Every structure is written in structure tokens, then in C-alpha cells.
């Protein structure tokens, strides 16, 4: 009660605490674990492992490494719940049990995926340590030859040519379409968006089958790098359109309006405001599309044809690419061919991961969110503009001085 009356009688106005008065302590750790919780976890893990070993060795007829892991995990969960329930209520037991479940899911997933990558790289090392693997082709190397003969230079070149063809078609078309969807709009644009969304569902093998039947059987009558490039384009185009569309939609409307307000035409607004603002996002979307396109095997399987020789002409003759070369290598039962397959897969994997990391370092930023370097560049450009304006004004004033008396009239006011 006294509090209330006091509140009523105190003069209105906000009281701000004096800065020096308020004691500040160390920030409280709210997310971490207490020592007790940590001991619960460690204790349950150790006793789970011990219990399982006992079960496997002495008490029950169980065997196998995978079985050990599964039984150990289950007994760990049971023991952990038991330990936590010693000093907590049901709600907290459930909470900590689910947290452990989520973490286990994460550990399983990241463990498995990291293992897949490391496994490929590790088995590829055998082939990768031979320098000729990168410089020679398989033309004069048979399945029985050791790894010191033959290589995948032709597949690397083929991949580069095919992805260049695909990029040359898909980038202008994809970004042009995304610009159309965002800057022109209208009913037709909605239709285009629906169709390109539908096309992201196209299975890659069906895209390959289309190019095989329409381009190879209908026009060229032979498998070629160009056909493979077209098949990759059909796969990449919807991906690029979709992500570029999202990026362009994020460009703030007031930037466009400011540009129109200054009297810029639509085209100048797109070229000087919208596209530069979204540049990093567009680059990211193209690179991610490229990473997907490079890794596609099934459309290439139907369209490019298999060859062991170097072919730099995309118009005639089969031209193999890296994923298809991997597929072709591991069809053979010979250990050296399988080793080559893993080597080629490792090269492909490194290529895709490198593309992804480049995309990440360039993009992943919202429009207008600049890196330190871009910010410096923008500041420098702005400074140059100021200098240019002052120089221009000074020039204009100098030009007006000889006119003498007319200066006043020349004043725009």
C-alpha cells in the first residue's frame, strides 16, 4: 500500500539512475551448464559405455560394432534420465532429455556427412598423389595399367567447357527473367514465376531424357558437349531464377523510389541501383547454381557420351565430364579404376566445396549490407563525387567572374 501512495505522490517524470550509482556485476551465464549438469552427462556416458561392454562381453549374446554403439546410446539415455531425475522434476527431465536427443541428431548428421566427405577424399588420395592424374587422359591407359599412367585431364576440361556453355545461357537468361519478374511485373510475370517454380521439380534424369530425344535424336544425331551443356542449363535455369528472384525482391523499395524521384528512367534504375545493390546475392545464386550443375551426373549420362580422349570441341564427338567419369571408372571391378574413380570424385568434391566457399565469402549478405572493403570503396566514391562537385562549382564561378556585373543575374536565384 505504502508503495502505491508513494507512487501517486511522487512528482511525475522519469527518474534516470545516475550512471555511477548502479552496480554492475559479471553478466549471468543463462545458457551454459552447471557443474552438476555436466557431471550428469559425463557420468551417464561413462556408465553407459561400461554397461554395454559388460552386456556384450559377459551377460548377453550381443555382438557387432554398430550394435555396441546403439545399445550404448540407449543405455546412456536411460542412465542420463535416471541421474537427472534424482534432483529435478519431470518437466526438467523431459527438457534435458530432449536437448540430448537434438544434440545426438546433430552429432549423427554432421558425423555422417563429414565422414562421407572424408571417406571420399581419403580413398582418392591414392590417385591424387600421382601428378599425371591431372595432366594425362585415359586414352592410352587401360584398366590394368597402374595409377602412374592415365588421368582425368579430359574430364576436367570437359566439365569446364560444359559448365561454361550452361553458364553462358543460364546466367543472362536467368537474371534477365528475374529482373523481368521484379521490375516489369504483371500477369504474365506471375505465370512465368509459376512455370519456373514448377520446373524446379523436374527430375534431372527427365531433363536429360528431353535433351536426348529433342536435341540429339532430332538435330545433332550424336552426343556432344553442347547437348550436355544444354541439359545442365535446363537443370540450372530454374534454380538461378528462383534464387535471383528472392535476392531482387529484397532490394528496398525506397532505393528504387529515390532513383525514380531523381528522374532516372526505369532502365537506369535497374542498371545503377537495383542490380548493384543485389550484386553479392546474385553472384551467390549463380555460384550455387553452378555448384549444383557441376555435380549433376544423370543429365550428362544421357547426353555427353563417354570417351577416354581429350575433346575440346563441344559441337562434335563425345565429351566426358567429372561426375560421369567417376561413374564410368567405378563400373570397372579393377581396384586401380576404382581408385581413379575416388580420385575424380575427390577432385569434383573439392571443386564444388571451393565454389561454395567462394559464394559464401562473396555473398550471404542482404542488399546494402556491405563488407568492410565495399564500405571503403563506397566512401571513396562518395568523396570523389564531393571533389568533383566542388571542382565543378569552382569552375563555374571562375567562368562567371569575367562577366563582371552580370554575376548577379547569373545567380540561379
Amino acid at each position, binding site marked *: 500500500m505504502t508503495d502505491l501512495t508513494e507512487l501517486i505522490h511522487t512528482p511525475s517524470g522519469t527518474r534516470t539512475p545516475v550512471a555511477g550509482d548502479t552496480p554492475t556485476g559479471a553478466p549471468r551465464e543463462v545458457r551454459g551448464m552447471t557443474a552438476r549438469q555436466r557431471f550428469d552427462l559425463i557420468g551417464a556416458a561413462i556408465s553407459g559405455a561400461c554397461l554395454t561392454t559388460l552386456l556384450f562381453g559377459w551377460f548377453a549374446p550381443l555382438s557387432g560394432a554398430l550394435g555396441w554403439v546403439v545399445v550404448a546410446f540407449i543405455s546412456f539415455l536411460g542412465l542420463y534420465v535416471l541421474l537427472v531425475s534424482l534432483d529435478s522434476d519431470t518437466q526438467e527431465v523431459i527438457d534435458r532429455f530432449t536437448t540430448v536427443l537434438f*544434440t545426438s541428431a546433430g552429432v549423427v548428421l554432421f558425423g555422417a*556427412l563429414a565422414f562421407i566427405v572424408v571417406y571420399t577424399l581419403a580413398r582418392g588420395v591414392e590417385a591424387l598423389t600421382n601428378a599425371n592424374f591431372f595432366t594425362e587422359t585415359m586414352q592410352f591407359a587401360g584398366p590394368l595399367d597402374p595409377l602412374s599412367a592415365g588421368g582425368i585431364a579430359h574430364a576436367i576440361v570437359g566439365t569446364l567447357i560444359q559448365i561454361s556453355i550452361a553458364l553462358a545461357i543460364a546466367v543472362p537468361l536467368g537474371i*534477365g527473367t528475374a529482373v523481368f519478374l521484379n521490375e516489369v511485373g504483371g500477369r504474365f510475370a506471375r505465370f*512465368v514465376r509459376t*512455370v519456373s517454380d*514448377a520446373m524446379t521439380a523436374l527430375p*534431372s*534424369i527427365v531433363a536429360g531424357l528431353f535433351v536426348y530425344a529433342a536435341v540429339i535424336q532430332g538435330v545433332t544425331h550424336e552426343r556432344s558437349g553442347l547437348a550436355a551443356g544444354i541439359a545442365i542449363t535446363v537443370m540450372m535455369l530454374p534454380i538461378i531464377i528462383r534464387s535471383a528472384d528472392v535476392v531482387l525482391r529484397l532490394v528496398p523499395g525506397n532505393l528504387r523510389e529515390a532513383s525514380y524521384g531523381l528522374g532516372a*528512367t526505369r532502365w537506369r534504375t535497374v542498371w545503377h541501383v537495383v542490380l548493384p545493390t543485389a550484386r553479392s546475392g546474385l553472384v551467390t545464386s549463380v555460384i550455387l547454381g553452378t555448384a549444383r550443375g557441376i555435380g549433376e551426373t544423370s543429365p550428362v549420362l544421357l547426353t555427353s557420351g563417354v570417351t577416354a580422349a581429350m575433346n575440346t570441341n563441344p559441337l562434335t564427338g563425345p565429351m566426358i565430364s567429372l561426375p560421369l567419369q567417376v561413374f564410368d571408372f567405378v563400373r570397372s571391378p579393377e581396384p586401380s579404376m576404382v581408385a581413379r574413380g575416388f580420385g575424380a570424385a575427390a577432385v569434383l*568434391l573439392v571443386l564444388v566445396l571451393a565454389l561454395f566457399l567462394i559464394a559464401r565469402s562473396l555473398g550471404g549478405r542482404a542488399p546494402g549490407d556491405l563488407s568492410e572493403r565495399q564500405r571503403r570503396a563506397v566512401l571513396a566514391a562518395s568523396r570523389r563525387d564531393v571533389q568533383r562537385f566542388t571542382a565543378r562549382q569552382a569552375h563555374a564561378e571562375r567562368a562567371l567572374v569575367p562577366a563582371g556585373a552580370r554575376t548577379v543575374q547569373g545567380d540561379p536565384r
Partner: protein
Amino acid sequence: MTAMLSTALPQPTSEAAVPRRFVSRASVSDVIFRRVATSAGIITVAIMLAVGLFLSLRASTALRTVGWTFLTEQQWSPETNTFGVAAILFGTVTIAVIALTVSVPLSIGTALLLSEVATGRLRATLVTLVDLMAAVPSIVFGLWGVYFLQGNIIPVAKWISIWFGWLPFFAVTDASGQPFTEASAFTSSAFIAGIVVGMMVVPTQTAIMREAFARAPIGEREGAYALGSTRWGMIRAVVLPFGKGGIIGGIMLGLGRALGETIAVYMIISPIFVINWQVLKTGTNSVSALIALRYGEASEFGLSALMAAGLVLFLLTLVINFTASSIVARSRSGAQSDD
């Protein structure tokens, strides 16, 4: 007031009586820009419609020959006019369902770990890793499946078939119903292909679910905590209902990818053309693996039959994708609370 107004008004003259017309005439560069952008859109649509129309046209030859039995016939021999997608579609769906059984618990758990449990730099690193994993080529997964998983998963498959063999789809029996126990009966099965495809789609699903979970409004989260909820209580009351659309959408997009996966499945399975309910037993099939297997030797008519199979697969993934995107769009994720 009237005086002021009357002075402010311009004197009506005969020339000013005609109202000014606001017609903006587009500049030349604008006209060109508009035409170029529109033609980019038209070309895109043309390419995509061409794919759809070409597939339907070529497929119609085969479909007209066999009619509705295309959906019920199990055999695939276009030479004798007995071919249908019953067995291969069944195989495709089996593999996809097994893939989802593997991937859904993993992806929901990991998505919650990333959005609710992990913080700071660890979260940023793991989110990047998930995106990175989505870009790993499927042939790499295929190699792992053939050379590592196949050898190591067979004891598990055998164990499941021994202890759960009373469930019809876990049993592995020969024609007379006698259970198999030798390892060779468990290779190249839908089970193994499903696990590999499952690992392949987990990153996609996780990324979509995490994004939906992370958008759960902070105000409602804090409200749940303020009412004394634990973290799991908050997740159950706020994050999961809010992210329901994201979960369903993620699962369905993963399903779409799993149905269309070719190369990893092709490398693992040994193709058969009968419906095989025993998922642990050798032999299954999928539409994309069938196309990869048969396109080369196919005659004009055989190609048309393959196109019909491809068209069925495309329609299936199309329906799934559109359902997924409309569920994601209609979920609460777009709505805002007062946070």
C-alpha cells in the same frame, strides 16, 4: 477566404480549359529494357513449356498403345507391348519412404539443435555446414553407399529381418516362404538405397526447417519462458506449432528430391520388374534408374515409353512441390506477432 481563392485560381482562358493530359512517354532505353526483359521471360517460359509439351507429346504414343494398364502393369518390355510403371513406381516410392524415415528424425532434431540449442559462432558454422552439405554431388553419396555402407549395413539388415521378420515388409524369404540368412540376399536392396538417399536429402530438409523455426516470434518465446516453461515446453508450445508449415514443407521438398534421385540409386540397386514388398531383400527399381538403364538401347517406341514413365515421375514431384510450397506459404511463418 473566397477572395483568396479567387485570386489563387487561374483565370479561365480558352486554351487552359483543355485539361492537361498526364501521359508518360517511355524513353527509348526504357522501351528497349522492357522488351529485353520480357523476351527473357518469354524464352524461359518457352524452354520450360517445350520440355513439358515435348515430354507429353512423345509419351502419348506409348500411353495410347497401352492405356490405363500403364499404371498397373509390372513388366517393362515395350517390344511386346507389355509395359507399365506399377513395379518401378512402387520401388521409387519405397526408396523415398525409407529415405524419409531416416531423414525426418535427423533433420527435425538438427534443425531444433541449430535454432534453439546452439548459439553464437557454433551455430553460424553449423548452419554453413548444412548448406555446404546440400551442395555435395550425389555421385559422392553413391560411392559412399556402394563402397562403404553396403558392406557395413548388411548385419543390421539381417538383424532386423531376424527379429522383426513377423512384419511382412521386414521379412526376407525365398519363393517358398523360407527365410534367407546369407548376406548375399541383403545386398542392393531398397533399404540401402533409401538410407543413402535419406542422407542426401537431410541437409535440404534441415535448412528449410531451421529457417521456419528461427522465425518463431521472440515475443511468444519470451512469453512462454515468462510463464515458467522449460526450453522443451517453449519449443512444444511456440516453435513447433509455428514451424509446422516449415516441417511439412521441408519433408515434402525432401520427398521430391528423393523421388527424382538417379545416380546413387542406380549405382546401388539391382533392377527387377516385380513389386517387392520385402524392402531388405535384394532387388528394387526406380523410374529414374530405369531411364538411365534403358535409354541407350531403346527404340523409338521404347523411348516414348520411357518418356511416359518420366512424365509420371515429373507429375508426381510437381504435385508434391506445389503442395509443399503452398503449405509453407500458408503457414503462420508469414504472420507477425507483436514482438
